[in-house]
Every structure is written in C-alpha cells, then in structure tokens.
C-alpha cells in the first residue's frame, strides 16, 4: 500500500444562507497516495470544488463552516491549523489551479511578477533572481520566448497560454500535491490535450500527486489512476480507473458513463443515449436516504430510508449502494 499523502475523513463543509444551511459537502471520505492522479468527478453542485477548496481552506468563513471531519495532510489535521501556517503550506506543499485562468491571474501585474511573488514566498530570493526563476518556469511549461513574455500582462496571453502560466505559478513552489479544479473546461479540445500532457509531464518531473476535479469522463479515463465519483455532496463510488469504466457499480456512475456519446464506437451512431431522468436534488434539504434514489431506476423502499455507507466490492473499489 502506497503512502497516503492526503486523507479526508467524514468531511462536512456547510454554508449558511438566507434560505437555510446548504450541505455542499456532506460526509466525504477520500485519499490520495503519493505520486498518483486522483480524479474527482460529478456534475455541477455535487461538491467537488468545495471539497478541493476545503483542503486548502479557501472557503470563506462565514458563510462556510467545517461541520465535521478531518483533512489529514501527511497525517496532520489541517482544520485547526492557524492561517499563518496555512499560508506556508499553500506556498510550499499544496498548489491549486482554477478553471478560469483569466479571473485567477491579477490583471495589473505582469505574469513574471506574479510567478516571482510565489518564488520569493518560497525561497529568499532577490527580485532579479526571482524574475530569472520565473523565466525558467515559463520555459518549463513550454511558453515560447519566455525571456520576453515574462514582462507581459495576463490579457496578452491566450486561454491555453494563461493556463500554462497558472501551471508555472503552481509549479514554482514545487508542491507535493497539485489540485487542478476543472483546468481544461474553458479550453478547446486541441488546447486541452496540450494542457493535460503538460500536467502529466510536470507530474513525472516533480513526482507530485494530482487531484483532478472535472466533469469530463473522457479526461478522467485518459489521465487518472483512481477515481472518486461524487453526487449531491457525497462520494457514491471510488475505484481504480479500469474498474470504474469496466465495471461501474453505482447506478449513478453507470448512468454517467452511458449518457456520453462515444465517437470511437461505430455502432453508437443511431443508438439512443441513456439519459438520467430528473435533476440533482437541492442541498438545502437533501433527502434522508440515498441521494440518488429519486432518479435511480433500481430504487427500492430501503433506498429512501437511509443513505447506504461505502462498501468494498473489489480491490480498492467501494460503492455506496445497497445493490
């Protein structure tokens, strides 16, 4: 068994709103081993982004609140860690990249200054050294002509190039874990392929782990070793990637995989897609039982009474379903 770098146990991150408490993350268990890529998939509002941001404590409190659970980073719980120390962890150990690279870069500073800032947080460097380091980082993420581009502002870069800048910034602190929150969702497919390849290259070079948050099953299949499927604030299935796609056990996972049109299958042309009826339940008053029961074609009486716990069904394969 590989070493667990990050382990989340029973995490509940709730938000207080005018309408009541939104249980965005409601009892999530997952772990990431050293050197692996874990995919966290699910649809909008399933709590995958809140889970990721909880790890770095990037949740505004209030309205957010850690209701229960532990976030063990190399065995140490991050929830009680004070803000100052958390800054150090964010600068040196865990990095994050976001979906929208334009909104997560500061428009009034050059990209060089922004990368240099991270480098100077990390090591005691002079400004000149830090800028030289930034040029190196831009070269590492294959930005052409890095010596010149380092003085450019974010708006002078294209979407794909901005995401490269974000990755360069994240890599500057040589993190052990990179949290990538929908890193390619805003990009075109050919650029997406470039960025995914770059992330893989960075992972191999620096030996870090990646937590890849996405809604795209295709991206998961091509980049992750293990996958966690979330639905309405809970983990419903966890499995090695081959098992998840080869033998999905939870009806939600099955539905998710079957609802995607496949370009690689000739017969798929006129086959009807299997849609999952209905839509995601409100997290204000989530159902007591299995959260998927209302949309599940196998739902039985027991399903609406209590949420089934995660059960082991194969090596590393766990499912929260009575079936």
């Amino acid at each position, binding site marked *: 068994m590989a070493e667990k770098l990050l382990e989340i146990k029973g995490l509940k991150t709730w938000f207080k709103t005018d309408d009541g408490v939104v249980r965005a993350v409601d009892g999530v268990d997952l772990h990431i081993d050293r050197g692996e890529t874990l995919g966290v998939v699910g*649809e*909008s509002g399933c709590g995958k982004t809140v889970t990721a941001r909880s790890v770095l404590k990037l949740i505004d409190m209030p309205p957010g609140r850690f209701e229960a659970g532990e976030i063990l980073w190399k065995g140490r719980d991050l929830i009680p860690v004070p803000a100052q120390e958390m800054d150090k962890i964010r600068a040196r150990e865990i990095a994050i990249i976001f979906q929208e690279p334009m909104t997560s870069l500061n428009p009034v500073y050059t990209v060089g200054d922004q990368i240099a800032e991270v480098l100077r947080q990390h090591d005691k460097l002079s400004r000149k050294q830090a800028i030289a380091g930034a040029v190196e980082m831009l070269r590492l993420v294959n930005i*052409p002509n890095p010596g010149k581009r380092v003085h450019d502002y974010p708006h002078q870069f*294209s*979407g*794909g*190039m901005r995401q490269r800048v974000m990755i360069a910034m994240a890599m500057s602190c040589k993190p052990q874990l990179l949290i990538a929150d929908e890193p390619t969702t805003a990009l*075109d*497919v*050919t*650029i*997406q*392929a*470039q960025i*995914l*390849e770059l992330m893989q290259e960075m992972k191999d070079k620096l030996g870090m782990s990646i937590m890849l948050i996405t*809604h*795209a*099953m*295709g*991206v*998961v*299949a*091509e980049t992750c070793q293990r996958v966690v499927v979330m639905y309405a604030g809970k983990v419903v299935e966890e499995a090695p*990637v*081959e098992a998840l*796609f*080869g033998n999905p056990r939870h009806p939600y996972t099955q*539905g*998710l*995989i079957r*609802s*995607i*049109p*496949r*370009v*690689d299958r*000739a017969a*798929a*042309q006129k086959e*009807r*897609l*299997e*849609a*999952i*009826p209905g*839509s*995601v339940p409100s997290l204000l008053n989530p159902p007591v039982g299995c959260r998927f029961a209302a949309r599940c074609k196998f739902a039985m009486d027991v399903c609406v009474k209590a949420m089934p716990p995660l059960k082991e069904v194969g090596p590393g394969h766990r499912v929260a379903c009575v079936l």
Partner: protein
Amino acid sequence: MSEPLLSVRNLKKHFAVSGGVFAREVDRVHAVDGVSFDIGKGETLGLVGESGCGKSTTGRCILRLIEPSSGEVWFQGADVTRLGPDAMRALRRDMQIIFQDPYASLNPRLTVGAIVGEALQIHGLAKSRKALEERVLELLETVGLQADHMGRFPHEFSGGQRQRIGIARALAVDPKLVICDEPVSALDVSIQAQVINLLEDLQEKFGLTYLFIAHDLSVVEHISTRIAVMYLGRVVEIAGSRDLYDTPLHPYSEALLSAVPIPDPTVKRKRIMLQGDVPNPIRPPSGCHFHTRCPIAKPDCSQRSPELVEKRPGHWVACHYRG
C-alpha cells in the same frame, strides 16, 4: 443528401476594428471568410470547430441576426440576404434558433407562457386567447414540461428545463429549419443526454432540419447526418458523420478528432498534438489558414489557398495534399 433546404454560398462576415482618434476602421476581423454548404431536408448538419472559428457567426448570419458582409443564403427559393424587413419577418417563422445559454436567452420578467406564446402573437398564429393558451400547453408538453409551469418565471427552472423552454419557443411557429447554437454545452452530461434525445425525437416527429453548432465533437457525431469542420472562418472539410470520424482527410480534422478524450481507459490512441494556438483572425495566415500549425504543410501552402473539393463521393476537403 436529399434536396437542399438551405444553401449557403460564399458567406462572409467581416467585423470592423476601429481605433485612433476618429474611431476609423483600422482593421477587420475575418470571422466568416467564404463559407459554403448545403443542408438537405430533414437532415442534421453539424458545424464544429474551436472557439473563434466563426461557427456561431455563420449560424447567426443565416438568420440575419448578424448582417452578412457578402454571400448568398438560399432558403426555399429566395436569397435571404436580399429580403426586405417584412419578408424577413415572415421567413423567421420557418427558421428558428436555440441558444447556448439558457440563462441569458430567456427574458427573466416574462412567464414561461408569455415567452413561448410571444412568437405566436407576433405572427398572428393564435385566433383567440384560449387557442393561444392551448397551443402553449401543447408545446410545453411536447418538450417534456408540465402545464403548471406556464405561470412560472425562468429563474424557477434548472438549466435543462430552461433549455426545454428555449426549444418550445423555437417550435412555437412550426419552423422547418432550427439552428441549434451550442444547445447542450452549458448542461451537465446527464441533462445533456436528455436534451439531445429530445431534439432527436422532435426532429422525427416534426420533420425538422437542424444546423447543429457545437464544439463537442462526440455530441456532434452522435446527432449529425453530415459534419462540416471550420477553422478560422473557413470550412476545411465536409463529410458524412461516420465517414469523417473513420477517415478524416484534412490534417486539422484529424488532429481535432484525435484530441477528443475517450471515456474508456483501455482505449489507447495516438494523439496528434497541434503546436501553438489558433492565429489571430484579424491577420489570418496567407494561403491555407492552417499552414502555420499543419504537420504536413509544404512551402506552397502559404501561397495558395485550397478550394473545397469533392475528393471522394460526398466527402469535401480543402487541402492541397490530402485525399
């Protein structure tokens, strides 16, 4: 292909870029740069390409929501680009559009009943108040919404339901051609499948013809009879949907298809990585627009612009060296 319902000939749209003290036109964005294609009665033509390739502008120019700079759009024996305002309004009964963003394309102050019924009133298609109400009810049921939804406002609906409202609105006037501009891009996969299935059912029921604009190649392959691939304002390839996926001839189509992630970890494919980004459409490359990123480009590709030629039956390609 059956008899064409719509024929687009050498369609161009240039947007002026103004600058200087007197806001003179200093440059032009060649958004659509000579596009030609036909859509047969009852078929679905998919229009794919990356952001900024001009696919949405093409769709809007056909309806004259954006006035084309030049070119012809033949629909039912008339050139749409030369019609006066009255004739154009009458024609819009036969050509409708569904937009990408179901949040932005519905008036938040109107009830669903008013949104769907508006076109019926404008075109005088309802004899009385009662007839109008009955027709709206019928439309809501057709798209899978309920009668009691009529008095509600758009914000009370989920994304998938809002897209259904948009579809009901388009169907209200019994159109022959529906331009679907990224209709499922903003939706989660399970909901996306519901809407795709609905569009397919409606096509069968009402004999609709679709121009389906999207960047998601798996969705386009699933729904289309034929597909046109666009790059920087030009169509580079048109072929039957399966034909295009099995034997793409243009190097751009080939790279685009190979970049689509397949949701199956056991499938390992050779990916063609395109270098760099899409060039600026203000100064598109000379000759073949793709030559700056093309893996098989030869010196004369930057000199001569390739014509769209039928290299195999029903398979048109704009490349000097392929096919």
